Structures are given as C-alpha cells and as structure tokens.
C-alpha cells in the first residue's frame, strides 16, 4: 500500500528529470524508480523522529532544526546512493556517460528529497494525531460503559419505596388480626432488603441466590395480593450454581407483578422457569397480560435496563427476548452459564 503510493511520485520525478532535457526517459526511470522505493523506506523512518519530537510539546526551533537536519541528511544520503546505483547501471549495461548525466540531476534530486521527506513528516504527524483521537474516542466509550454500569448499580441498590409502603401497610393491617403473620412479614421484608443490598454490591452471584431473593419478594407480594397472585416455579437444579450478574431477574419479576398481575382483575399466575443446556441457560418469566387494561408506560424502562446490562456484560453473548400471545407476556433470557 505504502510503496504503491510512491509510484506516482516516482513517475512525477522521472518526468521532472526528463523535462530538464539532459536525460532520456528510460534512463531517468531506471534510476528514479529504485531510488523512490529506497526513499519510501527512509521516509517511513521519519515516524520515529515524529514520535521523539511531538508536535505540540516541542519548541518550534528544535522542531525545525531536527526535521530540517534529518531531511538534509537523508536527501544527501539518498542522492549518493542514487549516484552509486547510476554508476552500477552504467557498468552493468555499458551505458557511457550515465554517471555524468546523473551528476547534472543532483541539485533537483536533492531538493525533491528534502521536500519528500518533509511531506512524509507532515503525513506522519497527521497519522499520529488521528491515532490519538481514535484512542481518545475508544477510551471515552469505555468510560461511558463504566459510567452506565455504575448508574445501573445505583439504580439496583435503590429500593422501590412503594413496595416498602405497601408492605408496611399490610403489616399494619396484620398486627391486630394475625400477629404471627405480621411478624413473618417483618422478617421477610428485612431479609429482602438486606439481600438486595448485599447482592447488588457483588459482581456475579449464583443464580440460586438470585432465586432466593425472588422467593422472598414473592412471599411478601403474596401476602399483599392474596389469592390474586399465583406462582409456578420450575427451576432446573443445574442452573442454581451458574454465575449471573446480580439482580438481573429481580426487575423483570417486579415488572411481571406490577404490569401483569396487579392490573388484572382476577390476578393471575406468574411463572418462573430456568433450564440449563450445557454451557448455556435459559430463564423464562411469564405473566398474564390484558392488553386493554395495562398501560405499558414504564414497563419498557426496566426491560431496556436489563437488556443494556446484558449487552455491556456479555458483549452480545446473551439475549433478552420479549413475546406476547394468548394473554401471556413472556420474557426470555439466554445467558452463558459461567461457573459450574
């Protein structure tokens, strides 16, 4: 690629020499083309110089001095090498007077050499700046991902206050009529809050722990909703040790209650299903759904957050699919099963 870019330069230089009138086409080309290939390598070396003398931080005088000297030295060396090549050509193919004709081109070749070197320097500076901006961009992207993850972590740690208020109201109602149940609710509530704070601070947890937290949550909601909330649980024990990001199911289960069971007049069945398939696992959360009664406002946000977390954490190796038919709303997670 880079050498090919030099071919037009070689053609141009040949033309310049021929225009001078003292040298023929074939001779000029025979000298210039190999010279240009050689110079391509010499100019490439200017990249090191550019790195050693960064454009922004260096003193302009030093900048001009170092590049000027380097350009002069390389052009001089190049012209000498060209002379040797011309002499070799003359000797090998018995071309009389080629070296003297070459000597006549030295000034113009030297000047071109200096200019080409300086162009290469400018080009290298451009390349360095471009690479730096790309690095900055990918760094910014990385930071953005980190910031988002932190934001989600904060969100997860934040406990839904309405859940707390409604639960306290249920306890308030139970205190007189069923003190034992009130006591049990207090313990469940404490367990749930302690669990979500603890799990939220971890990187990865076994699915079993996530499910225990969900059970705790659902036990509390069952007290609130009574017979309106039915739960079906079908968990492959092989999944329980799989490591998952903490609280990845919890927002989906809360959504299922809030937008599925709670808005339905008769309530309905929440179904939790997990199965393992070798190195992957599938988690399904299914709830009843009345299209005409539910306002979906807000339900999308929880789903979007979970989707984003999966994309960040698994780099496209995890999926979240949402489907809806026959009055059932179904969220399916597919994850690699890390751990054992």
């Amino acid at each position, binding site marked *: 690629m880079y050498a090919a870019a030099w071919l037009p330069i070689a053609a141009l230089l040949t033309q310049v020499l021929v225009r001078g009138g003292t040298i023929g086409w074939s001779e000029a080309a025979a000298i210039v083309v190999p010279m240009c290939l050689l110079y391509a390598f010499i100019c490439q070396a200017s990249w090191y110089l550019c790195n050693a003398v960064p454009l922004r931080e260096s003193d302009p005088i030093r900048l001009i001095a170092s590049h000027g000297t380097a350009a002069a030295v390389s052009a001089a060396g190049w012209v000498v090498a060209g002379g040797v090549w011309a002499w070799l050509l003359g000797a090998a193919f018995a071309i009389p007077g080629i070296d003297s004709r070459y000597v006549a081109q030295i000034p113009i070749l030297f000047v071109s050499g200096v200019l080409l070197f300086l162009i290469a320097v400018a080009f290298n500076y451009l390349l360095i700046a471009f690479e730096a901006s790309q690095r900055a961009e990918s760094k910014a992207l990385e930071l953005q991902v980190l910031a988002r993850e932190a934001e989600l972590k904060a969100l997860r740690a934040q406990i839904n206050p*309405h859940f707390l*208020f*409604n639960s*306290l*109201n*249920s*306890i*308030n*109602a*139970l205190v*007189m*009529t069923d003190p034992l149940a009130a006591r049990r609710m207090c313990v469940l509530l404490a367990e749930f809050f302690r669990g979500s704070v603890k799990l939220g601070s971890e990187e990865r947890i076994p699915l079993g722990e996530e499910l225990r937290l969900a059970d705790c949550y659902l036990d509390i909601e069952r*007290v*609130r*909703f*009574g017979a*309106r909330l039915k739960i079906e649980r079908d968990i492959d024990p092989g999944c329980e040790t799989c490591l998952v990001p903490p609280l990845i199911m919890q927002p989906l289960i809360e959504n299922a209650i809030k937008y599925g069971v*709670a*808005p*339905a*007049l008769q309530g309905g069945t929440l179904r939790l299903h997990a199965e393992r398939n070798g190195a992957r696992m599938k988690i399904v959360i299914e709830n009843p759904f*009345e*299209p*005409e*009664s539910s*306002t979906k*406002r807000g339900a999308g946000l929880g789903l979007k957050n979970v989707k984003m977390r999966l994309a960040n954490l698994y780099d496209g190796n995890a999926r979240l699919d949402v489907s809806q038919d026959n009055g059932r709303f179904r969220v399916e997670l597919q994850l690699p099963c890390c751990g054992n």
Partner: protein
Amino acid sequence: MKVAIVDDEELARKLLREYLADCEDVQIVAECANGFEAVKVVTDLKPDLLLLDIQMPRLDGFEVLELVGREVNVVFVTAYDQYALRAFDVHAVDYLLKPFSPERLREAINRARSRLEAKQALPVAELSAAARPPGAHLERVAIRDGANVHVIPVTHIDYVEAQDDYVSFHSAGKGFLKQQTLADVESVLDPSQFVRIHRSYILNIDRLARLELYAKDSHAAILRDGTRLPVSRSGYARLNAVLK
C-alpha cells in the same frame, strides 16, 4: 355517614375497616375490590364518602372519580405521593399516604363531614381532565352506563360524534354516550391519530378507507366499515396535514 371502601388489596380494606370501627357515626356500606364495583356501589347505595385507592386493575381511582365524582366525596388512599397535586385539582377531600395512622384517617373523615354539610357540586371538565396524567394522551375512555362501566381503549374507537351535551364514542358499530364536549375530547386525544374532521366529528385515521368529493368544496370520509362521515373544508385541511 355512609362510607364505601375501594381497594384491590384485601389487607388494606381490612385495615380501613378496623380503623373506621373506632370512628363514631360512620357506617361502612360496602367494600369494593375494584373500580367497577365502586361505580356500581355509588349508583346503588349512594354512599357519602369513598375511600379510594388509586392503583387498581383496569379502572383506576381517577377514572372512578371522573365517573362518579359528582355524586360522592372522595378521599384517596394510596402508597404513591406523586398523584397528590392531581388529587386536589379534582377536589378530593383528602389524600392519605399508606401507611397512615388512625388519627390521620379520622381527620380525613372529619374533613369529609364538613364538606358534606357545605354541599358543593363539582365541575365536570375538571373531573374528566383528571383521568389522565398531565401531558399524556388519553389511553382509554371510561364510560358509565348506569351501574356498569365500559372501558374502551382509544385504539378501539372508530370515531367520536357530538350529540347535544354529550359525545358518542363509536366502537365496532356500537355507540357509547358520555357527558363531555367534543372540544374536551379532542384536547386529550393524540392529534396524530385523531383528527377533527368536522364540527361534530373526530375520526380515528386508522379507520379511514377513502375520501370522496361529493359536492364542490365538501368531502365525505368513507370508513372501513362503510360509514360515511361529512368532512368540512377546514377538517379536510387538517386531515391532509396529518396524512401528508
């Protein structure tokens, strides 16, 4: 005072019943687990006060208030504080945040009692404006038909027709009457979906099959089910602007 309790959670109803037992001169006439039952109870038993939850299945507290608010006083009882402003906009007597103390409930009951003695009727427009969160378009229309309530998702509405002091929501060949003005209806529907094609008609543009020119300057809209509606000249311009 006759009180009805409306909450979809049994424990929440139980708690209110227990608290009310200590209030003198309060008679619990009904307990309702949803908004439909509440409307029926208001029609049949004419309570003086509803203790009304907001988040309920299919018909929420604000929709219940829109339908029966002129006949009964309402105290909202909810875990959500973000509705408080809206609640007072619609002249709710009080707004109780769960969990609350028996004293707080008694205060609300007393407030309702003094409101009852003052006897004031509530304006219809303000009630209907409350049935939807501020800034959002209407998603469903709740219509009372005696003790029954029809809930029509706006996507099921074919067109809305003005009829004197009422509007008629037409859906799948049936009409549902509601006391409201067409301008009020227009202002709460999504304008990219519903177009005022005539002084007396708002059309759901998904139902439009074609437009016919039937006299100079005047058009008729033919709906998918064959219904013909007149389109005024300005209605035609509005329709074109939406359909582009």
